[in-house]
């Protein structure tokens, strides 16, 4: 063996040993623990299970990429049973007892607001995916993935009415019927104001309590009012129930918009063709043009089918959830630290590129642009119809 070969062998052994030591040091580092709650049981469980699946997918992908700052990620998710008071208690436990390094928000506005109070008390960053009332988010280190903009009661209706104004048959009269569910009601009230300003004649305005059983009389009143356009401030299956009640009296609204419908059931409802709703992501180009989004859609479709989720498509909820995890990863990598204040400072100053768009957090309540788009049920599936650059080829808003 020549001297050179001997030296090379020694160097190779030394390198191997060094990498083994470094590898084992990385492996010995404790995992980064991210804590959150989700409504795994109770009335909000159906949607929260989507968020759970997305979180699992993201953490798996993140660990496959080497984790965060060289440490594996462990996600601790507790069941808040759809109860706001329990969410607050569990976030307190996650911080004080489980001693998690980072937080991820729970599902739905009420629970997020509860968690926000706890995060504020302990100076923790709270990134959340589904907060619907921006004006209530007062904490400086909370960051929204639900890109409604700071004034959705104004911007969302304007986006909708812009879309309708450019349709083949712009409406002249409007009926607004709405649930009093908090994150829905204020947008409907905003829609009413915007409609007035834009010169639409209001022929009916009705409110019902969340949990209303009988939609027959409401359907009869809408039919009686003969509106060109019906704004339905619904959440979950309320919209389906109202459409069912309308069908029973042989009435189909000319064109109808739903604030937060249950996306899967709405596409299957008999009279839901041409129903309009809001979205930030749908399973078609240009949303799926990025490799990250396309890969996520494919993985989610497969895993949701295996998990027996009723809707296996990636739409607003799943996309917002994925976006929140992208924000957390970007914040940690950008700050180069797990320190909450450093992460918050980085997020305040930088944009984050996500599957739902480029998000910024420097506006009121840390909200950036209103990225909401208008989607429509066409041939049994949701497609974005406005703004046109987000619509699939040859797809346009359809009116009857």
């Amino acid at each position, binding site marked *: 063996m020549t001297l050179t070969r001997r030296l090379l062998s020694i160097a190779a052994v030394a390198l191997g040993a060094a990498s083994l030591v470094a590898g084992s040091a990385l492996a010995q580092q404790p995992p980064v623990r991210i804590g959150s709650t989700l409504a795994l*049981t109770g009335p909000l469980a159906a949607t929260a299970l989507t968020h759970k699946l997305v979180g699992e997918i993201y953490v798996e992908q993140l660990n496959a990429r080497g984790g965060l700052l060289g440490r594996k990620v462990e996600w601790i998710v507790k069941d808040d049973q759809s109860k706001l008071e329990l969410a607050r208690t569990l976030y307190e436990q996650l911080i004080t007892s489980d001693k998690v390094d980072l937080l991820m928000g729970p599902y739905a506005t009420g629970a997020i607001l509860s968690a926000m109070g706890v995060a504020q008390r302990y100076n923790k960053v709270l990134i959340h995916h589904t907060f619907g009332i921006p004006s209530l988010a007062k904490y400086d280190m909370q960051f929204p993935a639900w890109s409604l903009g700071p004034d959705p009661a104004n911007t969302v209706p304007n986006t909708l009415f812009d879309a309708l104004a450019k349709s083949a048959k712009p409406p002249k009269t409007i009926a607004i019927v709405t649930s*009093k569910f908090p994150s829905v009601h204020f947008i409907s009230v905003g829609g009413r104001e915007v409609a007035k300003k834009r010169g639409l004649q209001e022929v009916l305005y009705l409110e019902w309590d969340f949990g209303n059983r*009988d939609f027959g009389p409401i359907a*009869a009143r809408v039919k*009686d009012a003969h509106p060109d356009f019906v704004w339905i401030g619904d959440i979950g299956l309320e919209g389906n*129930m109202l459409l069912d009640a309308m069908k029973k009296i*042989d009435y189909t609204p000319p064109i109808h918009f739903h604030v937060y419908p249950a996306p899967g059931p709405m596409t299957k409802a008999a009279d839901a063709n041409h129903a309009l709703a809001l979205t930030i992501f749908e399973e078609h180009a240009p949303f799926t043009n990025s490799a990250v989004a396309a890969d996520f859609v494919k993985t989610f479709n497969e895993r949701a089918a295996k998990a027996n989720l009723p809707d296996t498509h990636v739409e607003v909820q799943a996309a917002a959830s994925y976006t929140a995890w992208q924000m957390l990863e970007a914040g940690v990598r950008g700050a180069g630290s797990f320190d909450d204040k450093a992460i918050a400072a980085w997020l305040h100053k930088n944009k984050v590129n996500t599957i739902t768009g480029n998000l910024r957090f420097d506006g009121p309540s840390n909200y950036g642009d209103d990225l909401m788009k208008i989607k429509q049920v066409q041939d049994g599936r949701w497609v974005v119809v406005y703004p046109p650059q987000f619509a699939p080829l040859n797809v346009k808003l359809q009116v009857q």
Partner: protein
Amino acid sequence: MSWPSLNLLGQAILSGIFIGGLYGLIGLGLGLTWGLLRQINLAHFGFVFLAAYLSYQMATEWGIDPLATLLVLPPLFFLAGAGMQWLLARFEITPFNSLLVTFGITVVIESIIQGIWTADFRRLETHYNDQKFTIGNFYLPVPELLTLLLSVAIAVLIWAAMRYTDLGKALRAMAQDGPIAAAFGINEKGMSLMLAGVCAALAAVAGICLALTFTLAPSQIFAWVGVVFAAVMLGGLGSALGPLVAGVIIGVSEAVTMAVTAPSWAPIVSFSLLIAMLLLRPDKVGR
């Protein structure tokens, strides 16, 4: 407030009669156990929803006509109801404690439903959904009409049985004074088991009607408690026809309120009626 058109008012009244029929049907079993067995059986609501989900399962997964489930589910629920009554009697549960115990059973049933069918909304899609009769400008959907007809038929049948049969007389005697009734040879334990079974079977019938006409979610179980309690209290405990009549009055009042004013006022109607009755005719409420 503008006065609604005759067409709107008529359709709203029809809608109220239909939902009132369902209030009455759910309230019938609850009122009978309350009045005759002295048990406030909150599990009745759990049974209603369990039957609704089973009917949904049998119709959507196994292709059975929802109305055919009327032949299967009530007998099964009869056994479940009698079994629950046997347990309550075995542990000598007092009327107040029955409220707590049956509330617990309802929570368990809700969890079972959620475990099997998830918390997501379920809708029974059948050919009945598209069927309706038209009278002039008014629409009578077949599922709602069937519910009302069943509700009326069952209430009349039970009223007649209570009034004209020995069994009915024995039940009423037992409710008035159990020990004296027993002295006359009435088997109180057997009668209690039978009555609890019948009430659970009625819950099954109501559940099938609920699945035909409404969207199902486990959390909806408790949404029906207030209004059905009001119908039972107004209609009279142990009464066969009372809950139906009270249910229709409440349903129509709610529907007319929705047609004339804001729909969000409707939920307070049932309780306003109950409070008014308590103030004006306290002797008639809950009797």
